[in-house]
């Protein structure tokens, strides 16, 4: 069974380690916060200017001066801090953020990523994504394995305008966990009940399968 978006987030949450500063992109990545183990200390950074982001506020406690990068109302945890955009990107560009989790339209087997523009169709802008992928040492892409037309999003080469080059290290999709190594996708884990053959079929780029591939533990 392919994973739901919540389950993708749940699997990614296991990559979040004690003491990490984490930047979560919009969409599936935002859900990761819900699944992080409660016995570890993690701080979420939002590039619009908060470190120590907490859960959504209770109804009636929303503050227009307190939002995340997705423009959603949020709360600040005890020990949080607010700062300006330049200092926020000092954290990102200066590699002080330990883990970046973001969505993608396409990922190529050399680590290129595209997620900000479909020429002639959709141009929302890159927001902070280009800074994040150009700077982060540790990037996990959270996405569906195929697009709505059923086409693979794991490609030999990106067809859409790039967000960054040679930057993605790990990908968690509804079908699999993969890493990028030597210009190839390497299969690490299968979604429960999903076969290696199904994953190979859904992957357009070169896929390497070493031995038995375990099922994901959620």
């Amino acid at each position, binding site marked *: 069974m392919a994973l739901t978006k919540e389950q993708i987030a749940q699997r990614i949450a296991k990559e979040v380690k004690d003491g990490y500063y984490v930047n979560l992109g919009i969409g599936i990545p935002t859900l990761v916060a819900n699944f992080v183990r409660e016995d570890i200390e993690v701080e979420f950074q939002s590039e619009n200017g908060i470190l120590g982001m907490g859960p959504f506020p209770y109804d009636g406690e929303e503050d227009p001066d307190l939002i995340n990068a997705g423009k959603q109302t949020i709360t600040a945890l005890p020990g949080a801090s607010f700062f300006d955009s330049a200092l926020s990107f000092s954290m990102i*560009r200066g590699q002080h953020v330990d883990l970046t989790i973001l969505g993608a339209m396409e990922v190529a087997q050399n680590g290129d990523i595209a997620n900000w523009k479909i020429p002639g169709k959709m*141009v929302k802008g*890159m927001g902070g994504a*280009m800074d994040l992928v150009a700077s982060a040492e540790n990037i996990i892409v959270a996405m569906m394995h195929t697009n709505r037309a059923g086409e693979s999003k794991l490609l030999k080469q990106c067809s859409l305008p790039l967000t960054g080059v*040679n930057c993605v290290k790990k990908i968690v999709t509804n079908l699999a966990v993969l890493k990028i190594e030597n210009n190839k996708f390497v299969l690490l884990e299968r979604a429960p009940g999903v076969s290696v053959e199904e994953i190979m079929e859904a992957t357009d780029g070169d896929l390497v399968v070493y031995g038995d591939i375990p099922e994901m533990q959620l």
Partner: protein
Amino acid sequence: MINKTVTNVREACEGIKDGMTFMLGGFGLSGIPENCIAELVRRGVRGVTCISNNAGVDDFGLGLLLQKKQIKKMISSYVGENAEFERQMLSGELEVELIPQGTLAQRCQAAQSGIPAFFTPAGYGTEVGEGKESREFNGKMHLMEYAFKADFGFVKAWKGDTAGNLIFKGTARNFNPNMAGAATITVAEVEELVPAGELDPNHIHIPGIFVQRIFKGERYEKRIEQRTVRTRK
């Protein structure tokens, strides 16, 4: 102290002309200079270039200027959530330059700081890097980016004093401190304006030297773009 107060938003916007370049603080609809935007609409200034992280929504923020077709060019990092914007952009009526958010912040800070250019890895190898000088540092490729130039900067703070000192609240801070002093004239609108000396000098986020004109905004809607709540258990 040097007094930076002006009577109202009209006086604050004296000297604004068609074709100028403006910088506007805010992220989404949070921390935007609502009163200055309303005045720009009222004045009907046209053909302007706006440097702002976002473009508002259809009926609020910079969306109000877009509706009146007052904007010639937008320089932003993210412009989703605005149908009229998309229409003008795709039809070619509106010129749009999209740049990485960190680069946008740094180009403002560079202008504020008299740093004419700097290097950043953001955007290398992408459309953003096309036509730009690139260079390797520490084994990694970087783009050279320039300080912005703008005629007017409009920033919004929570509290300010008559000397122009500013204090921001929460994530409404965002680009506002980086844009103060980055344009020829910086106009600050604040929710609360106090006499110089009432703010703790250790708490000032932006000293008055970066602000030319300050006034108390008449009203703030402070619209929330994505109201998101959790349910009480």
